[in-house]
């Protein structure tokens, strides 16, 4: 069986592409990162639902849908939690971060959603994550980091990138510590330093 480097394809904007990119880089995966300008008809036909991101593993296995990609990579690295309940909390966190934090944050940044949404998300989601981390060392409540912690870090990092840093000031010490932990990872530090600027702030 021929093996190639895994590859990942998404646009320059962070939004949904950043979650798999952070995950791949966290594990130091050697992969080809394709920054796509647009999806032509030919390429679209190869995408299950006509959408990016797309991950192609070294054995040719193809996968779309952000969370499915991240979970697949995390499963390879035993990063989804040790028990069925821990894994359920990982899933709960993934769904909340993706649907209720990243997407609305992106929409506000793009100017298609009311800015007031940000305050609701900070009080509802980031406060919840802070409280969970204050009670347990890890988001999924086990004895080690999981994909849930990485997702919460990405959301926190993204909201700062979107220009909401002042709303976080001195309020979230555990989220700050989580950010420091992940940003000290070699792969993540390199990715943050080298990723292209979309020029759109999102």
């Amino acid at each position, binding site marked *: 069986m021929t093996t190639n480097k895994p590859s990942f394809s998404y646009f320059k904007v962070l939004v949904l592409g950043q979650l798999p990119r952070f995950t791949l880089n966290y594990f130091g995966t050697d992969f080809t990162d394709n920054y796509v300008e647009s999806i032509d008809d030919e390429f679209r036909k190869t995408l299950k639902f006509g959408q990016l991101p797309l991950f192609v593993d070294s054995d040719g296995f193809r996968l779309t849908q952000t969370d499915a*990609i991240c979970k697949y990579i995390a499963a390879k690295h035993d990063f989804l939690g040790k028990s069925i309940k821990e894994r359920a909390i990982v899933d709960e966190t993934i769904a909340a971060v993706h649907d209720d934090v990243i997407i609305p944050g992106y929409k506000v940044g793009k100017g298609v959603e009311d800015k007031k949404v940000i305050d609701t998300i900070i009080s509802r989601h980031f406060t919840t994550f802070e409280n969970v981390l204050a009670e347990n060392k890890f988001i999924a409540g086990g004895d080690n980091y999981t994909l849930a912690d990485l997702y919460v870090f990405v959301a926190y990092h993204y909201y700062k990138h979107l220009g909401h840093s002042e709303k976080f000031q001195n309020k979230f010490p555990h989220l700050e510590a989580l950010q420091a932990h992940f940003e000290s990872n070699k792969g993540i530090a390199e990715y943050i330093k080298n990723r292209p600027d979309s020029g759109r702030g999102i």
Partner: protein
Amino acid sequence: MTKPTLTYFPVRGRVQFPRCLLEYLGEEYNFNEVKTISDDLRKQLLFKQLPLYQEGDFKIVQTPAIIDYISEKHDFRGKTKEERARAHQCLAGIMEVLDHCLGYSFKMDKQQQEKFRNESPIKKFFEGFEMVLSQNKYLASGEKETYVDLMAFVMVDYVTNLGLMPSGDYPKLISLKKHYESSPQLKKYLESRPQSNF
């Protein structure tokens, strides 16, 4: 073991997905129907949203998380990590369809419904599922059904009920719908579920 409880409003909405799963797998559960989220209930909800799945002291919210938890308990997620990834990929697509429908359905008149069906934002998902089923017997491409085949049935059934079925032919999805509709495990639930339009 404690009988699980699902809490949601008296509509189909998001809860029909885990409900169908529990019914199909023959797991007994309580359904706690609420008209609104009381302050007391809100305190129990991690992100202040329903559905809520509860098993003794263990609570989870977020529909895909509930689905995955129930499926893992019943070994209904696929045998390999590739199969599980494909199932998750399809579930994510199904949830996108659900979001589109929940966002529009109850605001539409007949004319808007027709427009939605023709310029459908959900069409690409139906085409994707149809293509997978024309090449494989099951959506996760393994040799056995998984939760995602059942969830695709719920999606097609729901979209049909809302009158939002995208234009085009989907023989494989229609046959999937017929297969699960005739399932004895689902019969009772399908006959007694809320007749809501969302």
